[in-house]
């Protein structure tokens, strides 16, 4: 599905954050030794949602191209909401790293598309992408330590 409007992209971003938060909550249940980190990730997602909403509701006006700022192909960024059942810890960490990479790509692509049109929104998307890059690095460290 292709999303062009700010409203639909913001809703999509919120959904991705909610799905990713649910993913980490499941991870925390399944792997208690890293539960604190995973719950911290989940909490971070809620913060990102607030940041995105604030940026959008703060800048959306008729002077910016709210209905024509994006061209997001959603299929590129969707992921499994639950950690895969059966495989080992390392496989699930890899799944989380893949998910983070998709989210980094989503925020980077959406920021690039809307750079000239949406004022604070692309800036916020890039901040979230950067935070997710840090998170991906942490997951990589965890994977190497496994």
């Amino acid at each position, binding site marked *: 599905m292709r999303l062009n*409007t700010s409203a639909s992209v913001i809703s999509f971003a919120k959904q991705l954050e909610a799905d990713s938060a649910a993913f980490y909550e499941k991870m925390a249940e399944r792997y208690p030794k890293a539960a604190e980190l995973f719950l911290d990730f989940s909490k971070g997602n809620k913060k990102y949602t607030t940041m995105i909403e604030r940026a959008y509701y703060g800048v959306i006006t008729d002077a910016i191209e709210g209905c024509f700022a994006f061209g997001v192909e959603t299929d590129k960024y969707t992921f499994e909401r639950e950690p895969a059942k059966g495989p080992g810890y390392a496989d699930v960490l890899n799944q989380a790293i893949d998910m983070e990479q998709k989210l980094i790509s989503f925020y980077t692509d959406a920021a690039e598309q809307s750079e000239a049109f949406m004022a604070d929104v692309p800036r916020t998307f890039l901040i979230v992408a950067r935070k997710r890059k840090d998170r991906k690095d942490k997951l990589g460290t965890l994977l190497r330590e496994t």
Partner: protein
Amino acid sequence: MAILEEPIKGIVEVKNYIDGEWVGSKGEIQDVVNPVNGKVIAKVPSSTKEEIDAAVEAGKAAFPDWRRTPPVARARCLFRLKELLEANFEELSRVQTQEHGKTIDESRGETRRGIENVEVACGIPTLMQGYNSEDIASGIDEYLIPTPLGVFGIIGPFNFPFMIPLWSAPYAVATGNCIVIKPSSEVPLSQMKIAELVDEAGFPPGVWNVVNGGRTVVNGMLDHPDIEGITFVGSTPTAKNVIYPRCGATGKRVIAQGGASNFMVIMPDCNLRATIPALMTSFFGNAGQRCLAGQNAIVVGDDDHFYKDFINGVVDTARRMIIGNGLDEEVQMGPVRDAEKKKKILSYISSGTKEGARIILDGRSDFRIKGDYPDTCFLGPTIMEYVKPEMKIVTEEIFGPTMGIIRVKTLDEAIRICDDNPFHNADAIFTSSGRTAREFKYRIKSGNVGINVGIVAPMAFFPFSGMRDSFFGILHTQGKEAIRFFTESKVVIERWP
């Protein structure tokens, strides 16, 4: 993406808000129809002369105390209103979509713009300060004190039911005046919702009144000796032939904002990737029902390759637009407000073709509505080539999702076409040359000028400008000019022998 929930369930009985009370009207009742599906969502009265008189009387009675209320205390009421507007942001936005048809992004944008005016008016303790000179002669001092006048009338249009009355209302009450708002009877719900929040914010009764209706209410305002001034946004014929002269005849201050036929000048050095989305917003945003909307694009230069790229870009993008229910977050353009307005737009398209324009995207038939909705109020984007400056689709306001394309050789020709047009509301240029932009900005006789911006909507702390047949008056709504409009300069010269 889901369709967002409709905030208005059933049929709302719209009442007047007079002297802090919700009161029914003895006037005739008319339906408010959601243009997306034709459903009646409200019943609104055409209030009587006695009812507008009662609202003015309430304002007049409230004025002495409100005027004496310190500006900081008046500002606190506005701060509370701002908080309530933020808390109800999403509902207020969805109400606009439901009563008007615009997309949810557009409604949220309108809500934000409206709130920004309340925010600016919260600065009234400093905005309203006067000035003074000590010792204008030995031992004599002189002061200027901006003072409120009394009761003002605010007449809103159908295209921005939430925002446009807020270009005036917060400044009027912040400066110590009382107001009577008359919303468009086609879209009365947004102002009803705002008045509910005004009530909750604790404004004293009589300071903020809302009277619904049509001509009787407008005439009642224009003729009322206790209304000090009027702000009006609507069509040019009404602004020019009714509001402006009658305010003059009755000694009222006036801000009368009329229609427009705006030009977007496209230079061959513009960045098309950024320009095309800006043009889509400008021409087709709010289904073209916006006094800042582009109506005609003037493509400059004889570079056929650029011209072809431009045409392909605008037609391809416009053709792919998703049209439907504005509460569907994917939708990029909603319906026009009603079937009558659609008919008028269709007649302009026909007139364009009769006068020699060629349709390259036909919004009368070449579009699809997303979802199962009747096409009563829907139109697709229409793009016409070979448009000439003397055609009706240039000299008159269409107020619909149409784009005419005029081709000229030089910037001089483009500026001449803009200048020869009777309206001068908002013109813009798209270019990567600072020199060209400056030349345009310097020479164009337009109230609001855009450089690579398709909707030249001034922020709340700037005046919403306009010239010639787009504006009648001197001072404008919003910001410092609104403060001046709603106050008289009282000059005091003081000597203590």
